[in-house]
């Protein structure tokens, strides 16, 4: 939807396109009507929330993925090993 109407408008350069995207963000969240200091408060809160999400995922997602893989390989790979050990 965004790309279709973006193609209709003539953007001279990337800067204008980014400005238009920022304008859409202002309109959709409703920030457009607020005073500048309120806009800054909202933007900083949103930016810090997103930054925390990115940081958390950067720190913890590899660890969780490794643990999950170990758990699942232990579940499937471990079973045949124990029965073989029992038989021997």
């Amino acid at each position, binding site marked *: *939807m*965004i790309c279709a*109407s973006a193609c209709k408008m003539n953007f001279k350069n990337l800067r204008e396109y980014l400005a238009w995207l920022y304008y859409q963000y202002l*309109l*959709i*969240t*409703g920030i457009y009507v607020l*005073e500048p200091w309120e806009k800054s408060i*909202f933007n900083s809160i949103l930016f810090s929330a997103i930054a925390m999400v990115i940081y958390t995922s950067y720190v913890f997602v590899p660890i969780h993925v490794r643990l999950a893989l170990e758990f699942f390989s232990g579940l499937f790979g471990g079973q045949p090993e124990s029965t073989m050990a029992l038989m021997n």
Partner: protein
Amino acid sequence: MTESPTTKPSSWEVCHGVKNGLTADRGCLVKSLHRCNEWHPNNRCHLAEQEEVNVASQYGTLYNRPFVESFEETPMLVAVLTYMGYGILTIFGYLRDFLRHWKIEKCHIAREKEEQKDFVPLYQDFENFYTRNLYMRIRDSWNRPICSVPGAKMDLLEQASHDFNWTFEYTGRIVQDVINLGSYNYLGFAENTGPCADSAAEVTMKYGVGVASTRQEIGNLEKHEEMEKLVARFLGVESAMAFGMGFATNSMNIPALVGKGCLILSDELNHTSLVLGARLSGSTIRVFKHNNMQSLEKLLRDAIVHGQPRTHRPWKKILIVVEGIYSMEGSIVRLPEVIALKKRYRAYLYLDEAHSIGALGPRGRGVVDYFGVDSHDVDVMMGTFTKSFGAAGGYIAGKQELIEYLRSHSHSAVYATSMSPPVVEQIITSMKCIMGEDGTTIGCERVRQLAENTVYFRKRLRKMGFIIYGNKDSPVIPMMLYMPAKIGAFGREMLKRNIGVVVVGFPATPIIESRARFCISAAHTKDMLDRALSVISEVGDLLQLKYSRRRMQPSLVRPFDNNMYEDIDD
């Protein structure tokens, strides 16, 4: 039941072309039904009786043209984002209220006095919260001062605000030639040149401007009598009476017609004046779903079967109150069905033609003319002179006995000042022009031009991909905006490109369905409409307003819904 054919054939032959949507390539059945209604008034008797019997099943025989209305559903993503936007603005509203309460920020709005701080608060509803924290921020789209005639083009005073719309100041410049898509100027009679303005000026020289009395005392000029006879002739009824204000016509006359022990069945989306009049009268009010004939029929049947709430006595009167065109939705009432229902269940009909008089119908006589029904079937016809006639005031028309009764019992007739003579003359001249009695075909041309403009504008807007509500033939065109920030943005962007529009939000509409409302005029030329359409498309791309998910013309009558009766309670 037969209608006098004296004024019909002449204007019918002169105006060809687009007759409110009925184009040449319709099927023969519709054409023959239409001709049947027009040229053989005797058959109307048989048709009406058949209609009464078939009211519940064959809606097709009641209409002489296809009834195409559409109200596209809100896309889910848009609704969610709109609620989110309102949520964020509410949070900031609470923050600002907190700052104002603790005096961290200066408070600009109405506050209670120091002595009244411990009393029950006066200023705490949600609606005031909304006014303080949302309406004020985008207030520059409303109350813009106009400094010329509000015709097809107008001039605006440029205004600027330095404290975020709490106060305005004028820069001294004038924005010239703004295309006017907001005035209710359907036939273009809002002009300061031409026969209407000249005759109004003459009358001012003769009678002055003020009347200094009420109609009942000494304010009944011969001009008023002449105007009322003309209005009655225009509408095809026995008698009519005019009042100074359209709002007061509704709110002061409904209490004179119904009272305690009567039942009013009013449409969901009726205008505030009708709601106020109904409440003032003291009758029981029941609301049926907008333009929904099954809902109305169920209410009628329940009212007749059960009677008044506790005593079960029959109702003294049942009055159905509907409007010709609903100005927020752009929909047209299903008049043939309402009349069939009213005849079957012996109720009375009050039709408010504020927007539709002059704007619909091949001869401009309103929604009665548009559907080709008999004007004697509508018991009380009400309308206003503000919209299509370029004047001010309202009228009530109907049988002679009804109007004589109202002359002595209506509050507006007894207490309100009479209409001013130049305004009366404007009504007389414009009405004669529409009827063709001034010897020219200007009126007829304008009615035709309005129909053409309406169909063209709606078709183009729909093709562009906007969500447009309402009937294909109604000159009131609401275009959905939904998000709160886009309300203010749309108004400002359109003004930057020299087009003046009216945007509407809560509480005039449901909270997520905010819209921009275009009113088409016969004074708009095709160039103006094309320019307006290209600008609307540009702004629509800029603000991402093209929400519609279908590109074809919708052509359905709203289907019968089996769960329609669930939430109707007595």
